[in-house]
């Protein structure tokens, strides 16, 4: 009996010790990425896995704080925007050293931009620094001073530098270890990537302790979301960057403290009609889709609250436009999402000559209103949303046929052949700035969803959107930009060329072992502040 009591006491003491033990330095954080990064070259990053790797291993002049959405000094200690947004002067941080031992100076910045902007590289990031009037020029008037000059006015010029990694000009081979908090120590293709603390990292904690606090990060490549969840439950992984609503609820019921709903993301899910005059679709459908009243009626006939509640289990917010409420700088709070109102929808349809006969909506020419909506196969949420919209529209006598297509076929139809009637897709926004929407909202853009590559705006309201978008991009004055962009949001809401449905929330999971995690709605949701994260030893029975 005494022995048993001793064993129990020892176990209890061990458990108390392990739960009270402070987050240790030298700990390893483990999480998974859904795919192998397609590149480790920071200038060629185009996928989310490579973006995550770049975020952890590379340094930039300025970093946009994922929580406050404000640009903060990183390798540049200060900057000044001159020439009404055509020129920016950076003062660089002194005493920073690359892992290879070379000191960081303005020559590295100039060299990085030369490499990035080299036409032969075809860097997707370089496009941001190219305009119709030419390419940005970066020069170094001093050892710790850099000047970047743009051929045309650029809005929010400093934010563009968040995505540019500064590499060593003297590194014999590229890519070489960068100025990020971690360096790549081991890479097993398709299996895992091991990152170790960068021994020369310049950042220090408030008490002067060198950062990062972690010794290493092990990133496993795990395509299967269910396996990722299982491994998190077992304690093999400590973060899940993206959870589906189903997984979130399941995990919340098992271990409530581990899941985080960081609120609406910048992403949106939406439906649009094919309004292109050259589209090979029926005359009836073309006529309906070009009617503002028809589009508004469809928007009013969709139960957005139900979409959020049923499909996303409440982890989404109804959308009023392309800008999510998470985008505090640019969201137009005067616009509210359309509430389900079948009477108002029928009134608008009646005004356009539509009549409801024996439960079937017919237009002026007595054609039954029936159209198809395409979406990508395999997206469970979009298929469910389409099924709900199908039932919502049935109340207005409209028959909706749902077609799921593999992604290449879908892209072919919506961008080249234009042989489709309506489409449900989503947009992943990584930047909160309105200029990010230029390639969607400008009528001449090839990604202008409802009528791509217009030679000149085909409607007055599209011409006004073009004018306002160009106006907001050509000034650095936030108030003037906000005024232009607010009006753009109002036009989009009034004309409904794209029926915005909802903004999904950022759902993540953080193990209780991880200290200092502050999940945000912006990518990377859980490890954006990786240098301050800690991991304490696993508690018995904990996830």
């Amino acid at each position, binding site marked *: 009996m005494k022995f048993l009591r001793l064993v129990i006491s020892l176990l209890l003491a061990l458990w108390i010790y392990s739960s009270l033990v402070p987050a240790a330095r030298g700990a390893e954080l483990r999480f998974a990425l859904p795919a192998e990064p397609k590149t480790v070259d920071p200038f060629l990053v185009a996928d989310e896995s490579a973006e995550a790797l770049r975020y952890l291993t590379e340094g930039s002049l300025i970093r946009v704080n994922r929580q406050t959405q404000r640009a903060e000094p990183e390798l540049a200690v200060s900057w000044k925007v001159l020439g009404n947004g055509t020129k920016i002067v950076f003062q660089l941080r002194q005493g920073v050293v690359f892992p290879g031992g070379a000191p960081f100076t303005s020559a590295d910045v100039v060299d990085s931009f030369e490499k990035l902007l080299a036409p032969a590289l075809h860097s997707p990031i370089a496009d941001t620094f190219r305009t119709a009037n030419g390419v940005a020029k970066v020069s170094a008037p001093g050892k710790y001073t850099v000047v970047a000059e743009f051929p045309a006015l650029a809005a929010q010029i400093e934010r563009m530098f968040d995505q540019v990694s500064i590499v060593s000009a003297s590194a014999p081979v590229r890519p070489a270890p960068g100025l990020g908090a971690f360096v790549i120590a081991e890479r097993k293709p398709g299996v895992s990537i091991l990152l170790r603390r960068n021994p020369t990292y310049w950042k220090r904690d408030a008490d002067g302790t060198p950062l990062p606090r972690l010794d290493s990060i092990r990133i496993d490549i795990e395509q299967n979301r269910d396996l990722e969840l299982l491994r998190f439950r077992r304690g093999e992984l400590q973060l899940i960057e993206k959870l589906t609503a189903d997984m979130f609820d399941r995990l919340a019921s098992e271990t409530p403290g581990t899941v985080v709903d960081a609120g609406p993301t910048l992403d949106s899910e939406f439906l649009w009609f094919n309004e292109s005059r050259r589209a090979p679709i029926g005359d009836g459908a073309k006529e309906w889709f070009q009617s503002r009243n028809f589009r508004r009626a469809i928007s009013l006939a969709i139960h957005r609250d139900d979409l959020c509640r049923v499909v996303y289990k409440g982890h989404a917010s109804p959308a009023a436009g392309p800008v999510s409420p998470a985008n505090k700088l640019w969201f137009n709070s005067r616009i509210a999402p359309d509430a389900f109102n079948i009477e108002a929808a029928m009134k608008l349809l009646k005004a356009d000559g539509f009549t409801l006969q024996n439960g079937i909506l017919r237009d002026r020419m007595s054609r039954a209103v029936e*159209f198809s909506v395409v979406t990508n*196969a395999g997206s469970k949420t979009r298929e469910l949303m389409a*099924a709900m919209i199908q039932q919502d529209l049935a109340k207005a006598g409209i028959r909706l*046929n749902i077609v799921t297509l*593999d992604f290449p076929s879908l892209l072919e139809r919506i961008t080249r052949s234009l042989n489709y009637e309506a489409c449900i897709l989503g947009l992943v926004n990584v930047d909160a700035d309105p200029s990010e929407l230029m390639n969607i909202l400008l009528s001449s853009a090839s990604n202008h969803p409802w009528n791509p590559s217009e030679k000149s705006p085909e409607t007055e309201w599209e011409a006004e959107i073009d004018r306002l978008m160009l106006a907001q991009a050509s000034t650095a004055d936030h108030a003037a930009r906000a005024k232009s962009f607010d009006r753009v949001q109002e036009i989009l809401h009034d004309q409904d060329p794209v029926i915005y449905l909802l903004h999904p929330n950022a759902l993540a999971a953080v193990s209780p072992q991880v200290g200092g995690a502050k999940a945000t709605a912006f990518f990377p949701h859980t490890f954006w502040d990786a240098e301050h994260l800690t991991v304490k030893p696993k508690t018995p029975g904990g996830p």
Partner: protein
Amino acid sequence: MKWSRVMVVMFLTVVAGAALTSDLWEKTSYDQQFRESPDAPPSRRFPLGTDALGRDRFARLVYGTRVSMLLAPSAALLSCLAAALLGGLAGLAGGLTERLILAGADLFLSLPWLFLLLIARACMPLNVSPAVSIGITFALLGLLGWAAPARVVRAGVRELRDSEFVLFARAGGCTPWRLLWAHLIPNVMPVLRAQFWIAIPVYILAETTLGMLGLGVSEPLPSWGGLLRELEGGDIASRLWLLAPAFLLAAVTVSLQLLRPRRDLAI
């Protein structure tokens, strides 16, 4: 008839009967969304619970059974008819015709049918009702599945081509067309029957595969493939009722195999 076959016939009759007469006794429609109770567990109102949109899973399973059990045999019949025609022609004509048909069969067997179906699905008109869409999907499955049975039929016909009764028929002035349909095909009928029974579960499973990829029957029509997609999310242990369509699919597939005539099994 052995008792096991009686049981199988009874089981299939009950399943098919229930599926075909569901409109008479099922109170809720397969597409009615009870949005206030999505993902509900089994209850008196919903014997198999509700799906993610609050639709009665039992009503969907019954209707999905009708879709899968009506269309899979139709597709199997289509492929057997095509196989009888092309395989018979190849066996009877020989020479260049035979080589061309066999080359076509080899090509069809070597092509990845899933990608063929994806391409065919992408080329289909978009604005068709779910019923027409599923009809086209099964018709494509049937048309794509002719190659394997055609090779078997061709081998059978080739064997019979030089037999005495065929020589007598030829000598009597029988045309090749009549020879094929009146003399050769009836003699390879057991082979075709066997191919028909084999094809039914294959097509049910093919639709299931397409359904798992989200390319099967379009909403709101249910099918076994579409219903099986619910298993993707995991967490089956606490929701065993989700396995109902899998059990039904397995039971029907096994039953169809057991139902094959014994003489067909011997082939």
